[in-house]
């Protein structure tokens, strides 16, 4: 459904993505993990058309879309939950939902379409904030709104760039559940996620980006059986060390040149 082939992309400062290739089958979830600055968001933005591809192919449903304008790509069924929410600050929640809703766009794969009511049922916090503007929402509420906005576009391919950032743990779990369900309905999902265990939990495949290159791309079943290589690659072990004993005052606080 979504395939990326030898994709190179970057900014005026230089190339960030080097020959990235991924293949996401319809109804499956591809997780992408990697250190900060590895190029995950750049990949998502390039697929969505917000960053220009320098070379390589991006195919959606067999159609090459690299180089097309973002709105054309969106029209071909790509929905985006961007990093940092990017909700419209002057529009109310209700207006966001009204604007994003595209009920006329028939869903190609099974499952009923998304309606405003259904999204509000999923994210009830939004229902009580309908008249608030985007800039007045809390961080988590903005994240919810960004997810709702993407869903209402009835996407065939969903690009999620850290969709659970800032969501409370149980809500994050529910969103992951939802994504899982969507994929089961036939939606193609590209999920960028920082917490490896959460990525493995729902994804069918997991890829690791390092300095803009895919250095690992396996089915998650494999990763679950033997998580060591993957964890090593991401240095997960270092994540949360136990609280240490008293520390000497570090040099940080010395003020001498």
């Amino acid at each position: 459904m979504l395939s990326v082939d030898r994709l190179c992309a970057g900014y005026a400062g230089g190339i960030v993505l080097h020959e990235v290739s991924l293949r996401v089958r319809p109804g499956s979830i591809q997780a992408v993990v990697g250190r900060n600055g590895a190029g995950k968001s750049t990949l998502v933005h390039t697929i969505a058309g917000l960053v220009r591809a320098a070379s390589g192919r991006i195919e959606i449903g067999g159609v090459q879309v690299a180089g097309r304008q973002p709105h054309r790509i969106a029209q071909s069924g790509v929905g985006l939950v961007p990093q940092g929410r990017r909700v419209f600050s002057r529009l109310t929640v209700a207006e966001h939902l009204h604007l994003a809703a595209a009920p006329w766009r028939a869903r190609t794969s099974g499952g009923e379409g998304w309606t405003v009511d259904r999204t509000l049922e999923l994210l009830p916090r939004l229902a009580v904030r309908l008249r608030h503007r985007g800039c007045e929402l809390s961080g988590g509420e903005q994240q919810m709104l960004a997810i709702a906005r993407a869903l209402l576009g009835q996407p065939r391919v969903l690009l999620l760039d850290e969709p659970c950032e800032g969501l409370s743990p149980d809500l994050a779990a529910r969103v992951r559940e939802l994504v899982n369900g969507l994929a089961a309905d036939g939606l193609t999902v590209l999920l960028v996620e920082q917490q490896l265990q959460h990525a493995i939990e729902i994804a069918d495949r997991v890829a690791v980006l390092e300095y803009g290159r895919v250095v690992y791309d396996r089915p998650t079943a494999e990763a679950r059986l033997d998580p060591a290589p993957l964890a090593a690659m991401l240095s997960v072990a270092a994540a949360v060390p136990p609280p240490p004993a008293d520390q000497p005052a570090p040099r940080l606080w010395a003020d001498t040149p």
Partner: protein
Amino acid sequence: MRDRVVRWARGAVAALVLAGLVVAPWVVDDYTTALLARTLALALVGVSVALLTGVAGVPTLGQTAPYAAGAYACAVLGSRISDVGVVQLAVAAGAGAVLAALTVPLVVHARGVIVLMITLAIGELVVTVLGRWRSVTGGTDGLAGIPAVRPFWGLPAFGSDQARYLYALVVVATLVGAVLVLLRTRAGLLLRAARDDETRLRASGHRVPLYLSGAHIAAGAIAGAAGSLLVVAQQYISPADFGFDTSALLLLGVVIGGTASVGGALVGAALVIAVRDWLFGVLPGHAPLVLGVLFVATVYLLPAGVDRVRGRWRPSGPPHRPDAPAAPDQATVAELRR
């Protein structure tokens, strides 16, 4: 690598321009020299506009106000008290700074288009006052017959276009050099930070209004000094020299020069003013048309130059409820996209 090439190239161009400016009076005719002298004065105002608009992020259409204050102070001084250039320069800069200081309470809290309109109003008010305070300013017809200036006590008064031009060049070079040095210090860094994100700067403990007031007054002094150069170059001033056209062209010149770059502003403002003055001479009746087409073309030819504008010029932000100061958390997303 590329950076170094660019920097080197920029340095080379600057050196060439400077060399060209120094030898100019001996290679071009009187008209061009006179035009250049006048242009230098306006380019110096352009520098003050860039200091506010580009560096500090407070776009202004009102730098003609301190410019006019400087020019009239210098003209009155010149015809009644002293014809010594450095004295006039100092008094003019002081007058510009005082006027700027008086208007600080009006501008220091405003941002974006709002400042633009406030400064526009200040400029227009000053022009109106100049037009009506006839006993001092000569009214709308202006002040003519300002005696020639001597640069320093004991030196002869300027008698030629060359001399006037070289004096202007020395003054402009000195002041621009001072500005460039200033911008390399803490002051420049803090102003740029204020332009980028004022709320963040406050959250770090900085007194932003103080910095902006300082920048405003400094820019006023520079514009005032430029006013005295105009008097030297032209020996005549009238409110028309300080009208809205002048402010608008200066701002556009600064935009062409790249807003945040002082050298660029100098060149941009000088180009715009020189081209306009030159067009009115060579293409009578078609100057606005050609000038307009040139502006449009500039946007296409110099995308890098004109696109360097940032900071407060991003959309003026979501309309926050007045009782809730914009929580920095909830600022617009635009600034993240570069």
